[in-house]
């Protein structure tokens, strides 16, 4: 898939996730839009995963620690053929497998996540197992900046460096906002790069909406042999829909009919410019 095709795919995925959030009247809109480009690049350019043989033991693992942005993952997996897109019409409906956080009932999901600070420790276990078995697959997780204060992340940062897990990639969806407000006001996590370096990780910083930069960072690891990989992806919450961008209301806001139409119009216009 070319960079242009990936850019178009990102627009498509944004429209898809808005459609299903609008339909379900539920979802984490802002965070899903902020990680759409990351997931797009992961699934279309980086991860070795096969929807028809998802349980292949040699597959790359992707465990989404910021589970609440599941809508972005759903539409990405549906687009890859992990399940029929129509299934998403049941998003958050009574008895549906397509709930507000990842579950293994859905083909393509590695773990049940949603409670924050859980994805990385599981990835550390997966990465240690891969090393023990001398396997070459890689382990990826996506962290939200709002979950970084969870202490379990820092326990896992230590362990990943201790075990020299250069097969582990933690991507930070750094949109700098969380449900209550800006990270800066809720709990400062500044100097992330320096903190992670001090914890023994090799760090890269990218524009999390720049397809080329994401491909370059995610496909060229390990950054340093023997060190776990940390990618700070600078993102914008609500990316792609101007009235949502940086507006906290859209953390889990659901668009009205009029707002939904405005969003689609804007995304269609963006699409026409690619």
């Amino acid at each position, binding site marked *: 898939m070319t960079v242009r095709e990936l850019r178009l795919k990102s627009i498509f995925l944004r429209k898809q996730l808005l459609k299903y959030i609008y339909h379900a009247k539920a979802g984490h809109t802002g965070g899903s839009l902020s990680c759409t480009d990351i997931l797009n690049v992961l699934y279309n350019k980086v991860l070795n995963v096969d929807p028809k043989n998802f349980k292949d033991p040699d597959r790359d693992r992707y465990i989404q620690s910021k589970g609440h942005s599941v809508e972005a993952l759903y539409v990405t997996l549906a687009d890859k053929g992990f399940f029929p897109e129509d299934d998403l019409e049941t998003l958050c409906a009574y008895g549906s497998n397509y709930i507000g956080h990842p579950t293994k009932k859905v083909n393509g999901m590695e*773990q049940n996540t949603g409670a924050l600070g859980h994805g990385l420790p599981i990835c*550390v276990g*997966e*990465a240690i*197992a891969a090393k023990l078995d001398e396997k070459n697959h890689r382990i990826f997780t996506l962290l939200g900046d709002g979950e970084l204060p969870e202490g*379990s992340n820092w326990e896992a940062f230590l*362990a990943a460096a*201790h*075990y020299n897990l250069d097969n582990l990639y933690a991507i930070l969806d750094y949109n700098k906002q969380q449900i209550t407000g800006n990270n800066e006001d809720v709990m400062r996590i500044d100097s992330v790069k320096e903190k992670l370096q001090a914890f023994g990780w090799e760090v890269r910083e990218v524009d999390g909406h720049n397809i080329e930069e994401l491909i370059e960072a995610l496909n060229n690891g390990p950054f340093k042999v023997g060190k776990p990989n940390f990618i700070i992806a600078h993102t914008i919450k609500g990316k792609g829909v101007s009235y949502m961008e940086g507006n906290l209301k859209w953390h889990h806001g659901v668009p009205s009919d009029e707002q939904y139409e405005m969003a689609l119009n804007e995304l269609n216009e963006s699409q026409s410019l690619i």
Partner: protein
Amino acid sequence: MELDKIEEKELRMGVPNQVVFSNTLQELAVTDRDILVTTSDSRGSGKLVPFAEKFPDQVVEVGIAEQNLVGVAAGLASAGKKAFAVSPACFLSARALEQIKNDVCYSDNPVKLVAISAGVSYGALGTTHHSLHDFAALRAINNITIVAPADNYETEQAVRSAVNFNQPLYLRFGKKAMPFLNEQNESFEFGKGRIIRRGDDVTIIATGEAVYPAWSAAKVLETERGVQATVVSMHTIKPLDVGLIADMASNGRPIVTVEEHMVNGGLGEACASYLMQNGFHNAFKIIGIPDEYTVTGSQVNIFDHYGISAEGLKETVLNILS
């Protein structure tokens, strides 16, 4: 089984159950390289130093970080490893409870959670080091089997069963040397209680290290009062062997439960719930640690203080019979 088929002998003294855990795992690890032990600076308490010396590549040390211990073990189990996450019960079942609930049970990663020095094994160290909540907390979580072996036999069997058990499991061990309570060559199975002594007057259902005082009380009751007690080692708290409980209750005799756990939410309340909802109205008493600031001292001191002893349980049984 017939009530008179169990011969009572003098008890042979064993070693701490957690030593048996370590020894059994060492034996199994020789041929099974997928067995991994994850520890949180707890290999000494877990008697795992010899294991770590023999199988250094089969130990994943995470330092004092119990949440990470369980999360990492979940990842290892997800990758096909037979992951034993070993940590003192007090920390494992409280500090890492959310990891147990989500990463192990909800995600159905078959981690073997090994809770060492459980109950009041660390008696004199105080409440921070007691685990009197773990049965209650874990009983309220879906998809976990909870096992507290009474003696070395049950421990060895539990560890052997655990290795290829493909579901989340919580194994709870104490640190005190335990006598062999019943060395008859009978089968051991998760979810099936074991009758270790039979008598017609009263049933004592106990678990873990509280089974020995229950057995001792039965001996004293017989010797001093001619009272015949059946003693059950209900090593599996969940799923509970309700068939055996029904058998015990069906003749109407009183039932006393005994556990090294708070009286809230443990073995006793699990039994009571079953009995009340199934039409049994036996006289019934739960013996455990009451809902108060727990007294400190050795495990024996604390057991004596709360009546988890031959004398204490004798009095409880005599009261309920009267």
